[in-house]
């Protein structure tokens, strides 16, 4: 349904007067999503996860430029098409309640989303009512303002904004941080239900454990590129292909709890060769000469010549 290949995003910034600098925030990123599956996008902050969501919705800042191929349902996803599809065929479930208008009642906001999908005001009201009921939100919740919602209620309201659309692709941007474990589980279940209903779901998160609970496949981002796309079971069966994914897995408290030393490269000074080469235990001279291409191994994809 969605296929992204070799997406690169560059930010142009001016510092100290007219000196221009280019930030390569995303380099050769690839990802594909099928209908009915949850693909988790995992990476630390600054790996380009949220920018991917913004690209798909056509809401990148004006100083950003991108190259590469974006195909949605077989057609190229241009800025014009993005603007036509967003909210209708592609929906966003945002991070937090800060993405809701602070002065508008939440019921009204969800209704407005439905109306933007071409539903009549009366039908939108009914749809909102049904959706709120489905998520165990009391009727008077509709009359509340965002600041009056608890963390769990806010998550359910945010999911409702996607449910009232007919979107085929739902992008959930960091839906779990700072929440109680029960609320996290509930939020993830709701996303899984969206996939069961035949929609494609992209779950953007830095929490691998959360991702593994519901995702079919996991794409690991590092410094703005896809280093590996693996099936969820590859993690527990030890069939991970890329040294960064393996290090990430080992750094979890339930595993060895060993952090990986070093930091992601600065987007102003990316290394010539493999983006992970300066932290990689397997590094060889070939790694620093050329950027490795994404290769298919064991039904997964990896960007490493040694895998």
């Amino acid at each position, binding site marked *: 349904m969605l296929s992204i290949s070799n997406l690169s995003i560059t930010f142009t910034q001016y510092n100290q007067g007219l000196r221009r600098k280019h930030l390569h925030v995303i380099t050769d990123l690839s990802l594909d999503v099928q209908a009915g599956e949850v693909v988790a996008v995992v990476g630390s902050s600054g790996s380009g996860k949220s920018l991917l969501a913004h690209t798909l*919705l056509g*809401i990148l800042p004006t100083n950003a430029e991108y190259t590469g191929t974006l195909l949605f349902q077989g057609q190229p996803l241009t800025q014009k098409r993005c*603007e036509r599809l*967003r*909210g*209708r065929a592609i*929906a*966003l479930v*945002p991070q937090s309640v*800060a*993405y*809701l*208008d*602070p*002065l*508008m009642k939440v019921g009204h906001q969800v209704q*407005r*989303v439905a109306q*933007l*999908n071409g539903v009549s005001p009366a039908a939108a009201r009914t749809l909102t009512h049904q959706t709120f009921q489905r998520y165990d939100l009391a009727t*008077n919740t509709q*009359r*509340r*303002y965002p*600041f*009056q919602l608890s963390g769990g209620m806010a998550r359910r309201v945010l999911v409702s*904004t996607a449910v009232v659309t007919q979107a085929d692709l739902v992008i959930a941007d960091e839906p779990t941080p700072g929440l109680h474990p029960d609320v996290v589980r509930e939020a993830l279940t709701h996303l899984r239900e969206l996939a069961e209903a035949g929609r494609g779901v992209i779950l953007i998160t830095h929490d691998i454990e959360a991702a593994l609970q519901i995702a079919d496949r996991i794409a690991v981002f590092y410094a703005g590129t896809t280093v590996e796309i693996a099936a969820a079971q590859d993690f527990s069966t030890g069939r991970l292909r890329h040294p960064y994914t393996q290090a990430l897995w080992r750094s979890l408290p339930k595993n060895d709890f060993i952090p990986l030393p070093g930091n992601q490269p600065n987007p102003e000074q990316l290394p010539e060769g493999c983006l992970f080469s300066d932290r990689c235990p397997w590094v060889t001279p070939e790694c620093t000469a050329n950027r490795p291409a994404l290769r298919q191994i064991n039904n997964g994809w990896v960007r490493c010549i040694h895998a």
Partner: protein
Amino acid sequence: MRLNPIVRFAGSKLLRLGLLLLAVALFTFVLLSLSPIDPIQAYVGADMMLISPEQQELIAQRWGLDQPFLARLWDWLGQLLQGNLGISMVFNQPVIEVLANRFQASLQMLAIAWLISGILGLLLGIASGALEGSWIDRAIRLYAYTLASSPTFWVALLLLIVFSVSLKVTPICCAAPPGVLTEDVTIWQHLHHLLLPALTLSIIGIANITLHTRQKLIEVLHSDYVLFAQAQGERLWGIVRHHGFRNILLPALTLQFASLSELFGGSVLVEQVFAYPGLGEATVQAALRSDVPLLVGIVFFSALFVYIGNTIADLSYPIIDPRIRLGGNLEP
């Protein structure tokens, strides 16, 4: 008790008003006592040479000017508390009556200017903020900056030259045509004379409100919730209508009420240029002709007026903003 916070709010506001007026009273009295104005000379005027020092002494005694400073202050405050502001020497009328007459004339002008500047300022600010960086935004900003930095009296003179002297579409002065009795002035003549002063005053006010509204709307348009609205497929004007307007209304209203004080100050200059017989013009006369009672009355009145404007702005917050109105209260 549901009413309790409102009663407490009103009580504290009234107490503050009382303290403010007391402070204004003390300052005015001390400053005027120290000023070189001689009340007797101001009263007698050019006939001062015809009056013997004994007679002057008698007037001073009659007015209590021979009393020590604190006794005079005490006496004056007592009269003030009874609502006696004295008699205006320029108009030969009780100060209260002068204030009432003059304010009535000014009020119409202020109200028109206030409404026009509020509505036009808001509209221009929204257009300019929504189209940030476009030529429309640039034109509106240029206009606003130019007006914000032009002196009021200069704009008034300019409009007078253009509309009254060259085009002859508006009268050149006053609140009524010359030679017509107050009773015979029609409403149209009245509005005709009011038009240019009110317009001048509103043109000055627009700049401030436009620039503030623009800034606030730009802030709103860069917020996370507008980003999400875009992701929902909302277009620019849909965003302005559904999210922008709602979120800039509150600061706009506050600004609108707070701008009363600026309008009041501006009216002094505008009324002077157009010779419009309002409170502002009376202020200038009272000051030039050392009419101490009237001057004190006007100072009091303007303090009250500005205070009321700011208090309404304060009050509008809890009424309009649900975050303040409902607080953390979860019961709908």
